[in-house]
């Protein structure tokens, strides 16, 4: 069965309805009362609550609840001021000046000052991942007075507020950073968020307590931006790595929210009168990334042949398991709510294979039956292996010689970074606030897409201020990728989690579903 990209099933319609309910949060917000404990079963947690020391987003959950940055992202993926009161660029776009809000204090009681922002962001600047992108744009950060932070940029760039929405850019008190650097974590998070970390037990969970001195923004809540209500007195994260145990804990009422459930569990939580599913549509793209530098996959014509040979629907079905939980949308940026969602350059009939064209490109390529090494990580069996095994079967039928190499994630990360050790690897791509942050577009990211035209477009995108012009540039980049295929997207998958009846305000937005400070626990 082929699912058209613009057709979404009942579950996704339900997701939209849930989103509508979330959108009406102001209605319950007026009626809700503070109190109670919100208990959340989570599948994994980091060894430290400090988000700066790792680029694994799953390890940022604690900081996302307890900390805040200068900016936060709203439901349309736009950066909005959070700790910033206002911000402005100079005329040539090379200096960003941010004025901090008054009356903000850290959990330790110390007032927020510009020196805290400078210290936190200097540390962020020397960290891996998006921190490195920030370092590439920002030459220096200074604090001319207690309430003003100035960013001097290497060149005119509009992307700094967007970068400063990511969790590792949260602001910690300068005093708490004592001895910490980009790879050494702080001993405790001293932040400004609506909850403070009361207890962090690695491999067990986290307990948050409401921060009574928190000063919320007055704008309506929107994803991570706007007002933060802090409805629950206490929020508890309980680490439960096994998905069926998270589901059972929810069914028995031991937890109020069970995060990251397999889609197979939809019926169980839907049929129970005490629980309800929350479907986050358009969560992330499932992809395969090619080694564009070395080996057979460096041949553009071979990559084109692979794209046209793939039937994407069975690949998504194998991974997700239910056609209601995915679409074959071709945009790299999976959430249509983002201004960066694009279909530029997407060939007609993208969803179906075109074997004639695939054969033409294969004939034009220099491929002579060499073995292509396709890496997958054991820990990502559903997203990596199940997509790979289905795609490889199709490509073998087409005549390609491909070997899947499944390995632990530690080995996968090491091997895919070695230009001599892989030809392609399974991956996935969420929506980013700004396309300059998309990992695949980083020239040193595995895959190593360093085409000059792409580098020029990236440079232009980073320097252009006007949003409409930037969207046009990104569309050209999107088009280029659909001509060169440094990676191939099969489709977009939805994500499932579930809540107890009585939980209000649970978010179905792909922007953020961990804004637990805006969730009302059930009365017990």
């Amino acid at each position, binding site marked *: 069965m082929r699912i058209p990209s613009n057709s979404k099933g009942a579950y996704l319609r339900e997701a939209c309805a849930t989103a509508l309910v979330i959108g009406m949060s102001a209605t319950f917000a007026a009626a809700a009362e503070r109190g109670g404990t919100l208990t959340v079963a989570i599948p994994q947690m980091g060894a430290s609550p400090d988000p700066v020391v790792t*680029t694994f987003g799953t390890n940022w959950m604690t900081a996302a609840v307890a900390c805040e940055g200068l900016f936060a992202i709203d439901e349309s993926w736009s950066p909005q001021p959070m700790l910033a009161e206002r911000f402005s660029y100079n005329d040539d776009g090379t200096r960003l000046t941010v004025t901090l809000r008054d009356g903000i204090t850290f959990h330790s009681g110390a007032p927020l000052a510009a020196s805290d922002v400078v210290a936190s962001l200097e540390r962020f600047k020397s960290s891996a991942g998006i921190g490195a992108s920030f370092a590439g744009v920002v030459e220096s950060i200074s604090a001319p007075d207690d309430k003003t932070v100035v960013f001097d940029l290497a060149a005119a760039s509009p992307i700094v507020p967007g970068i400063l929405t990511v969790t590792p850019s949260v602001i910690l008190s300068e005093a708490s950073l004592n001895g910490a650097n980009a790879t050494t974590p702080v001993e405790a998070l001293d932040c400004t968020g609506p909850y403070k970390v009361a207890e962090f037990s690695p*491999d067990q969970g986290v307990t948050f307590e409401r921060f009574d001195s928190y000063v919320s923004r007055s704008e309506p809540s929107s994803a991570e931006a706007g007002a933060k209500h802090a409805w629950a007195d206490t929020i508890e994260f309980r680490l439960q790595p096994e998905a*069926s145990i998270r589901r059972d804990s929810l069914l*028995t009422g031991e937890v109020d929210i069970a995060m990251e459930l397999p889609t197979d569990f939809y019926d169980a939580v839907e049929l129970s009168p005490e629980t309800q599913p929350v479907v986050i549509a358009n969560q992330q793209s499932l992809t395969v990334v090619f080694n564009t530098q070395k080996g057979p996959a460096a041949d553009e014509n071979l990559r084109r042949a692979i794209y046209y040979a793939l039937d994407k629907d069975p690949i998504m079905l194998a991974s997700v398991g239910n056609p209601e939980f995915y679409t074959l949308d071709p945009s790299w940026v999976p959430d249509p709510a983002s201004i960066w969602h694009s279909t530029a350059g997407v060939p007609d009939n993208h969803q179906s294979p075109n074997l004639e064209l695939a054969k033409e490109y294969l004939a034009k390529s220099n491929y002579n039956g060499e073995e292509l090494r396709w890496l997958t990580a054991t820990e990502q069996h559903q997203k990596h292996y199940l997509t790979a095994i289905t795609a490889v079967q199709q490509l073998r039928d087409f005549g390609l010689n491909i070997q899947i190499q499944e*390995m632990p994630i530690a080995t996968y990360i090491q091997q895919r970074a070695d230009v001599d050790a892989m030809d392609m690897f399974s991956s996935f791509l969420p929506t980013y606030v700004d396309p300059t942050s998309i990992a695949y577009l980083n020239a040193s990211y595995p895959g190593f897409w360093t085409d000059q035209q792409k580098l020029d477009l990236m440079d232009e995108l980073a320097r252009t201020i006007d949003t409409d012009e930037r969207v046009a540039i990104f569309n050209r980049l999107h088009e280029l990728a659909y001509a060169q295929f440094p990676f191939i997207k099969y489709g977009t998958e939805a994500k499932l989690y579930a809540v107890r009846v009585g939980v209000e305000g649970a978010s179905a937005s792909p922007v953020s579903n961990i804004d637990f400070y805006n969730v009302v626990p059930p009365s017990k």
Partner: protein
Amino acid sequence: MLRYIGKRFLLILPTIFVPLIMVFLLLRLSPGDPAGMILGDQATAEQIAALRAELGLNEPLGVQFVIWLKNIVTLDLGNSLFFRDPVVEIIPRYAGVTVGLATIALVLAILIAVIAGSFSALKRNSIVDRSIVTTTVLGISVPEFWFALILVFVFAVTLRWLPVAGYTPPSAGIIAWGTSIALPALALGIRQSALMTRMMRSSMLDVLGEPYITTARAQGLPEHVVIGRYAMKTAAIPVVTVVGLSAGYMLGGTVAIEIIFALPGLGRLLVEAVARRDFPVVEGGVLAISLILAALNLIIDIIYAIIDPRIRYK
């Protein structure tokens, strides 16, 4: 007796050091980079290389081995690459959960085995005997994780007598601790109890056929004295061997149980440390398990010597 214990004690040293050296080499020779796991999948090659240098992972293997050996001898196990805490502080926290779990599971298994095995032997070929034998075959054949999920479904989801998952430390109250550990201990103990029951039954059947048991009965001793004082003591020797093996197995078998029930135990810590290439924690964990196993074996050997004095003179 002291000489016997001394000899056994000396045999412990290779039991501890051989696995440790193997783990050291395997971790460093197998692919997978701790720096990559610390920084995450968005880190660049340059950032990973810089962290490798900072962690001392770029030193030649021989240099790393000498440093490691010196640290082990001085009981300096280093700091976790992820937690940043000293390994000597981390391991006891997690080992306490595992030892508690394995001990409860072992006690449950022994109790079930002694009662069911003896009863089965005494009622040989009866329906009860056959039922027990069939149940033990089932118990041996089914893996722990399956038992665990069934127990959760029955006792937590359906009956709601016990929590689905999670761990409460003994400091929060012995009942709360017992409640949190009951299902994991049962899931871990069932398989071993089946194994021990079969051994107990078989051993009891052998002993019950011995002439000295017939003599004891012929002298008119009450049956509970014949069984309790004479038969069970002799029948216990092979069972003690199985108990020792089971204890070792349980320390390894806790991994799946700890993951399912979200228990912060040594097994889960080790598996996760291997996955993220946290070398010091893996080495510390293996050292802890080796020490526990060595201590267990020593205790078993001493129990042998107490039960059967002939052993200490061999």
